[in-house]
C-alpha cells in the first residue's frame, strides 16, 4: 500500500501534488473540474494590498512546448480576497492545504497583506512571491540579497504560520538565495517561478504580448526547474516545492528525486484539468512498481554515479 502523504510545514498533505499560483485562481473556478479535496492542496492567485488592474492583452500565447504569460498580477486585493474568495476555500476544502500567494510593491505592502490575513481561518500559510517577471518591481526582492533577507525576516516577525518563498530562476546561483531565505526564517521554498521571455509577431513586427515581455512556463522549462530545485534543495534543510513544466507522475518524480518534498502543477491544468490527478496517479503507480512505501523515501533519493 503506497502512502502519498507528506508531513511538513507543520501540517499533513495527503499527496505531494499542489496547484501552482496563478493557474488555479482562488480554487472555486475549478471546483467542477478538479476534485480539489483529493489532491495535496493549492496556492492561490497572488493577493496584493490594493486591487491591481493587470496588463493589456495579449496576456498569454503558446510557445514551443509551453506558454508565455504577462497577466500582471491582476487580483481583487486583500479586502475583497478576505470577503469574497477566502470563505469559499474555508468552506469547501477539508483535506487540501491552502497557501496564499502574497505580493507587494514594498516590504510594508507584503507585511500588510500577511497581517491582514493572519487571524483568518481557511488556509495553512503563505507563499511569498518575490519572482513575478511581469510587473515593474516584481523581482525586486527576488534578486537583491539584502532586500530579500530583510523582507523574509520582517514577515517572520509578523506570523507564526508557514512562510514559503517562491524564488526566481533569474539569478546566477539559486542556492545563495535559498540560504538567505532559510537564515531569515523561511519555512520552505518554491522553485521556480517563470523564466523571463519574449515572443515577436514577425508579420506585424510587434511583440505578441501587451506587456512586451512575459514569463515562460510549461514542459519547455522542466529541465531548468529540476536543475534549480536540485541546487536549492542541496543548499538548505527546509522543504522545497518543485515547480516547472510538470504534466505527469514521471515529471513530478524528477523534482522529488532532485529534492522537492512537494510539487506544483500549473500550466498543465490549462491543457487538461485532470493533470493533477494524473500526476498523483503516476507517482502512486511508480511507488507500487518500485516497492516504495512512502513518498518521503524518494525525496532527494537521486544517485549520482561517481566519475572515474
Amino acid at each position, binding site marked *: 500500500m503506497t502512502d502519498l502523504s507528506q508531513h511538513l510545514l507543520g501540517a499533513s498533505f495527503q499527496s505531494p501534488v499542489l496547484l501552482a499560483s496563478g493557474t488555479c485562481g482562488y480554487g472555486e473556478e475549478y471546483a467542477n473540474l478538479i476534485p480539489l479535496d483529493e489532491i495535496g492542496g493549492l496556492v492561490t492567485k497572488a493577493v496584493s494590498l490594493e486591487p491591481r488592474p493587470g496588463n493589456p*492583452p495579449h496576456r498569454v500565447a*503558446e510557445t514551443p512546448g509551453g*506558454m508565455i504569460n504577462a497577466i500582471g498580477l*491582476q487580483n481583487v486585493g486583500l479586502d475583497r480576497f478576505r470577503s469574497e474568495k477566502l470563505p469559499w476555500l474555508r468552506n469547501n476544502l477539508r483535506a487540501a492545504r491552502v497557501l496564499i500567494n502574497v505580493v507587494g510593491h514594498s516590504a510594508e505592502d507584503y507585511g500588510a497583506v500577511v497581517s491582514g490575513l493572519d487571524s483568518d481561518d481557511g488556509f495553512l500559510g503563505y507563499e511569498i512571491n518575490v519572482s513575478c517577471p511581469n510587473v515593474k518591481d516584481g523581482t525586486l526582492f527576488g534578486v537583491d540579497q539584502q532586500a530579500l533577507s530583510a523582507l523574509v525576516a520582517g514577515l517572520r516577525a509578523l506570523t507564526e504560520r508557514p512562510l514559503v518563498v517562491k524564488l526566481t530562476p533569474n539569478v546566477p546561483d539559486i542556492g545563495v538565495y535559498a540560504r538567505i531565505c532559510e537564515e531569515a526564517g523561511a519555512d520552505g521554498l518554491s522553485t521556480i517561478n517563470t523564466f523571463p521571455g519574449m515572443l515577436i509577431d514577425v508579420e506585424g513586427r510587434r511583440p505578441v504580448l501587451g506587456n512586451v515581455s512575459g514569463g515562460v512556463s510549461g514542459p519547455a522549462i522542466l529541465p531548468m526547474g529540476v536543475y534549480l530545485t536540485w541546487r536549492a534543495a542541496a543548499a538548505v534543510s527546509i522543504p522545497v516545492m518543485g515547480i516547472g513544466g510538470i504534466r505527469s507522475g514521471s515529471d513530478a518524480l524528477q523534482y522529488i528525486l532532485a529534492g522537492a518534498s512537494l510539487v506544483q502543477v500549473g500550466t498543465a491544468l*490549462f*491543457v487538461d484539468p485532470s493533470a493533477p490527478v494524473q500526476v498523483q496517479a503516476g507517482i502512486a503507480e511508480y511507488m507500487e512498481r518500485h516497492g516504495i512505501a512512502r513518498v518521503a523515501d524518494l525525496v532527494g533519493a537521486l544517485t549520482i554515479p561517481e566519475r572515474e
Partner: protein
Amino acid sequence: MSAPVRSWGRVLETRQAAGDTFWIEVDCPRIAAQARPGQFVMLGTGLGDVAAPFLPRPFSIGAREADGRLGFLVRVFGAGTRRLSAVNPGDELLILGPLGRSFSLPADRPIVCLAGGVGLAPFLFVGADARLEKRDVRIVYGERTGDRVFDPELIRRITGVEPDLRTEDGSLGRRGLVIDDLDLDDQPQLLACGPDPMLRACADLALRHGLPLQVSVEEHMGCGVGTCQGCVVLSAAGEWIKSCTEGPVFDARELA
C-alpha cells in the same frame, strides 16, 4: 450557468469548407446536452505530447445536434489550428465546455447576425436554433475574398438559412462589408462576431439605428474557465474583464 465538463470526443466527420477552413464534427453528448448558442469550448489534444497546439484553443460551438454531435469551424492560422484542422474521423480531441455566456435573444425582435470571417461560427448554431424555434433569423456573412467563403451549401444545411454573402473583392456574393446596405426597418436584435474593426463598425451602426447589439469577442485564452485572467478585454468602465467567463458575448455597451 451550466457546469463545464472535461471530455474526450471522437471526431466523426471532417470536410473542407473553404481553402483553409474546415468543418469538424465531434461526438460529445455530455457537452452538447448543455450547449447554448454563443458558448464556446476549449479544444485540444491533451497532455500526451507538446506539439502545437500544446494549449487548447477556444472555438465557438458551431452546431449542436440531437444525437450529441458538436460542430466546429476551424480555420488555419498557425501550427496549432493546422493540426486541429487535419484531424481524421476516429481521432480523439480533449474538449472542455460548454464555456462562457451565450447570446440572449429577445422574443419580440427578429435576429440579424453579422459575421466576419471565422466569426461565422457562433451564428451557425444561432441560426439552427432560431429556425427550430421558428424565429426570423438572417445571417449576413462577409469575407475579404471569395476563396475564403465557408461553403454556402454547408451553411444552408446546418442552419436552414440562406446567407446574405458579402466579399470585399466582390468575387462571391455582394461586393462590400456586412454593415453595408442592410434592411433594418424591422428593428432587429443585432448580433456580431468578427475582427475588432468590424465589431466597432457594428457598434456604430447599432448606435445610429438605435438597435440593440450583442458582440462575441475573441482574445488569446489560457484556461477558458476564469482562473488565468489571460483573455481580458477592456470594459466601458475601463477595467480588464475576462472574455471567457464574463463573455465571450457582451452587450456592446459593456465594452470600450
